[in-house]
């Protein structure tokens, strides 16, 4: 009776419903996109009605919000933060810079494609994306969670060697442990 496919399905539905409606976000706000987070969370656009809530530490967070470009120096910190988060965890790439580098595409010290280094679940397009676009991105993430397709954390675990090789190509002075889990 237990652990068969039917009861697992019911558990999955309850799990995904709870995960979908309670997203604690950790905004990594070093890029210029961080300026769009306060209007998204406060009175005018009010992301809390979707159950989206700011969280202060990576241990409690579900969503890592990367707001804009990442310098090679800050990539190291992002990897550390991402690996400190507890499964299941999701990454939202925010702005054009995380997709293809945006206006910093030929800069010597920023990364261009975030997906090479961390598994991104949802991209939000724009430079900057308006709060409406941010909320649309969150709703898209909620849909993916409901369908069970937001499994970037699982992909990261399965392809850990590939991701680590990519990360070490960028970060030349790797002075931290290989895994920060």
């Amino acid at each position, binding site marked *: 009776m237990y652990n068969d496919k039917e009861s697992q399905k019911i558990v999955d539905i309850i799990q995904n419903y709870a995960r979908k409606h309670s997203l604690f976000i950790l905004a990594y706000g070093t890029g210029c996109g961080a300026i769009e987070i306060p209007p998204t969370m406060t009175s005018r656009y*009010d992301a*809390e009605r979707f159950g989206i809530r700011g*969280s202060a530490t990576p241990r409690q967070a579900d969503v890592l919000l990367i707001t804009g470009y990442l310098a090679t120096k800050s990539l190291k910190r992002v990897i550390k933060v991402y690996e400190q988060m507890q499964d299941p965890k999701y990454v939202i790439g925010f702005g054009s810079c995380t997709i293809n580098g945006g206006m910093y595409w030929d800069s010597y010290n920023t990364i261009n494609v975030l997906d090479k280094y961390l598994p991104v679940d949802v991209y939000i397009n724009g430079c900057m994306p308006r709060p409406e676009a941010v909320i649309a991105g969150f709703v898209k993430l909620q849909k993916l969670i409901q369908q069970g397709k937001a499994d970037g954390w699982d992909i990261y675990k399965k392809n850990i060697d590939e991701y680590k090789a990519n990360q070490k190509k960028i970060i030349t002075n790797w002075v931290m442990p290989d895994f920060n889990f």
Partner: protein
Amino acid sequence: MEGIGYKILGAVLTTILAFVVGMFYGGFSRKITARIQNRVGPPVWQNFLDVLKLLFKKTSVRYGFMHHIAPLWMISMSITTLMFVPVLNDGLFFTNLNFSGDIIFLLYIMVMGSLGMALGAGSTGNPNSAIGVSRGLTQMVGFEIPWVMALVALMIQYKTTSVTGLMEVQSQSGTWLMFSSPFAFIAALLAMPGMFRYSPFDIVGAPSELASGPISEFGGKYLSTMMTSGSIFAFVKLTLYVDIFMGGASNLIVLVLKTFTLYMYPVLWGTVSARFRTEQSVRYFWGWPTFFGFIALIYAAF
């Protein structure tokens, strides 16, 4: 034998009631805060979803024994405190384990949960946790003094050391203690926001300042246990205030009305005020609340 069965059933029912009511109070406070800030706000059952989601999260953090024990310690202390607070005046299920002298016992057991949290946060080694714990203990020194003074004044005035004794005094005289000994009520009421840790007394878990303070290394199942414990404990504190000062409650609807009215006072104060610094908070508690505590003691003694 039947008596024991009723007691166990009553304990289980009380715990479930405290959990559900406390969770809904948290949800209502979030909703009311949102409406005051001209937002729509989350649904009132949002806290249940948060707890459920945190239960489904995986946990791969190990900081040693005390880190595991701290949430369990907190929830067991909350439920223990709940067991010694009579929820209704004369119900079959909700009277629980009262004995003469339980006010003194409650004064001690109510800080045990915070102690467990302090030990657990200390073992994680996060500097934010350490600062949060030291702030919390400092603030506790602040609000415990007027609170204890108020309770001691009541114990002297009515010559009883049990919560049920104070409730009997109120039901016999027909007036609530908040009217028959007003200074103790004022002191206890002014000390109350410190227990609930809403603004301006949210210096312990200051979100943007300390990264949520003592709980900053607790995630997943640990945090969900802590949230459960916190909501049970909020219900316990409110029920204790209602029992002592507002004549208890004869049925659950009256209880919910009275506790909710009382709960709105720290919440609404919190929505319109900014955060204190630690020494400002302590200075507040050692000012007017302690003054009214002294007046209450003098009023009780003479």
